[in-house]
């Protein structure tokens, strides 16, 4: 079966490609690309005026299955991913039960094969039950298909534990992902510690609750030679620490969310829990620093931390409501804003959404080179639309971007040569 993406702007930073042409897909692989190589006909998608990019890969998604199917499932989560242009997602292990063993990893992969609209890469827990006490079966989970390890949602507070995990995972060349948060510094907080928290009377989560853990983890990665990946980096100090560690040659990578690139604590609408996430929206200087860090490559990837929650869970007192917002369907237009504002080149944007995630987690994809899997995202950078969570393909609606006027939208998402999403025109 052939699929031809005709006359698009073929855009692939992994091979410095930016030219108008056709992309030919045969079965599940990219076969060829070049100017005007395919005739119009059946199996042809006219991509005139559209950008044809390697499929986006989200390193940080909560699919909630098993255990929290009322929030999201593998089916609904990957459907939302495809709608956002993501051809692959890394699924965090904080399900119930926690993905801390090979059986759970294999189960998730089986569900994804059966129901998935995008590829699913399991992230296994670092410790049993993510309780931080005993190392989980990293080797067995890797055998079953885990691509990284994390106790996401919780930091690994025990420095010896994270040190051993870095050493052990380095045997498989897999990253340890840290949700960097010193729980003593953040205890009881529900938004960033700053003037807005004081004004709203909400307990603050200090920026250094993150940076202190980032510093610790970078030192341990340097000592062990292991690969530390910092999840959802959010503060200026964290960016500075990662930049300095990378310059020293530490095996460190990092991701940032679209919401930390877009909003800061001053934007937190009064007690609107759709502005409550962890790490919280930080100060304006932090936001500027993560944008700069993404632009200069200190921060490798954009990852959504898509964290669906049911309406009744979010419609609570601010300090009682769970942390997290959805992100898969709003990521592209939010990051495109940085491109149109001149903060980011289009090449860095596509790299951060696709090539870099593949590179740092050693995943297939992230490229349009012939012979690679046909995971492709076709988007219109100029399409104007209004985001309405009621139309979301996710099971949950918890987004602070309700009714935002966006520019840029995914029109087609192709996974393994199969069109898994077509935008309603």
């Amino acid at each position, binding site marked *: 079966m052939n699929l031809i993406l005709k006359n698009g702007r073929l855009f692939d930073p992994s091979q410095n490609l930016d030219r108008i042409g056709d992309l030919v897909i045969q079965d599940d692989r990219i076969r060829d690309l070049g100017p005007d190589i395919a005739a119009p006909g059946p199996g042809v998608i006219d991509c005139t005026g559209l950008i044809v990019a390697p499929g986006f890969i989200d390193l940080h998604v909560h699919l909630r299955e098993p255990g929290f199917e009322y929030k999201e499932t593998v089916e609904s989560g990957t459907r939302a991913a495809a709608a956002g242009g993501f051809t692959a997602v890394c699924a965090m292990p904080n399900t119930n039960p926690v993905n801390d063993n090979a059986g759970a990893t294999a189960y998730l992969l089986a569900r994804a094969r059966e129901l998935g609209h995008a590829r699913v890469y399991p992230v296994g827990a670092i410790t049993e039950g993510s309780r931080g006490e005993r190392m989980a079966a990293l080797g067995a989970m890797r055998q079953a298909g885990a691509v990284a390890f994390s106790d996401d949602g919780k930091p690994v507070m025990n420095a010896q534990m994270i040190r051993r995990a870095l050493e052990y995972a380095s045997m498989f060349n897999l990253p340890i992902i840290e949700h960097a948060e010193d729980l003593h510094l953040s205890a009881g907080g529900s938004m960033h510690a700053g*003037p807005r928290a*004081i*004004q*709203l009377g*909400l307990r603050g989560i200090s920026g250094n609750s993150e940076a202190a853990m980032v510093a610790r983890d970078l030192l341990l990665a340097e000592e062990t030679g292991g690969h530390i990946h910092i999840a959802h980096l959010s503060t200026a100090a964290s960016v500075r620490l990662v930049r300095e560690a990378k310059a020293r040659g530490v095996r460190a990578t990092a991701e940032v969310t679209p919401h930390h690139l877009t909003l800061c604590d001053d934007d937190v609408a*009064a007690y609107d829990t759709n502005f409550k996430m962890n790490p919280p929206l930080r100060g304006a200087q932090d936001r500027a620093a993560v944008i700069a860090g993404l632009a200069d490559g200190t921060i490798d990837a954009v990852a959504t931390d898509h964290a669906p929650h049911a309406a009744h869970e979010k419609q*609570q*007192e*601010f*300090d009682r409501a769970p942390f997290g917002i959805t992100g898969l369907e709003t990521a592209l237009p939010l990051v495109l804003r940085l491109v149109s504002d001149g903060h980011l080149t289009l090449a860095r944007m596509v790299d951060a959404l696709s090539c870099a995630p593949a590179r740092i987690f050693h995943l297939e994809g992230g490229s349009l080179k012939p012979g690679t899997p046909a995971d492709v995202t076709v988007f219109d950078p100029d399409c104007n639309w209004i985001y309405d969570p009621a139309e979301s393909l996710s099971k949950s609606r918890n987004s602070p971007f309700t009714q935002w006027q966006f520019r840029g939208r995914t029109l087609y998402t192709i996974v393994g040569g199969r069109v898994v999403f077509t935008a309603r025109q």
Partner: protein
Amino acid sequence: MDTAHHLLGIEGLATPRIEHLLELARQFQIAPPPRSLAGKRLLLLFYEASTRTRTSFEVAARRLGAETVSVTAGASSIEKGESLLDTVYTLRAMAVDGIVVRHSSSGAPHLVACHVDVPVVNAGDGMHEHPTQALLDAFTILRHRPSIEGLTVAIIGDILHSRVARSNLLLLSRLGAHVRLCGPRTLLPPEFAAFSDRVSLTYDLEEALAGADVVMVLRIQMERMRESFFPSEAEYVARYSVTSERLRAARPDALVMHPGPMIRGVEISADVADSPQSVIREQVENGVLIRMAVLRELLGETA
């Protein structure tokens, strides 16, 4: 949600509305009120223990002829883990005309106001605001001073966790006072300076009291000691207790206020609490007048 139909905080409360409420309270002080809220039913939803505020609202409502229904923490549905909104929907269905909310979570009255069609009054939410307390404090000051403009008000104690401090600094600075906040560094974050140009911070009690027209003393919860905000009660008393000796730094006619509950010998000495300068008991009396004004405005004038 339209904030004009509620009283959620001093922030966002228009100055003409503040003046109107103070004027209403003044009228109620002079003339016994008519039963202008006869037939109205007020729900007092108290998720946090409170004697003085709940009683004050109850007395205020009844003096205006309204009926009150009290639901307090420990009541069954709250204990059973029902969500705040479900509790509110249920009670709203019992034909109440207004809801007074006290809650340990900042923003809880705001959440309620977003989901009901009757006026909501914030009777203290977490570390956020306690607007009727600030209004009664302003009213109390105005019974002794012609204007708040130009006064220096020292607020002393656990500023960080105090909704009384937040509401008062917002209200009094808006009305033209200079507000000095004072407490240990751990309980007085520098971010408080961002509230207003008329707010200043000091960790030194003597500096806070120097030349002050009004001294507002806040309770210090011993729970803060366990959280290591300060080392011991003795050290707090040594540094921050308002005693008659220290009070000499303030103006000789300075008013001494305390929102209660007051622990004599800790944040305030007994002789200061009972001194002729103290208007602490008068605050309680004025609380009823202010709450009558608030209920009258929200339930009586907009109906």
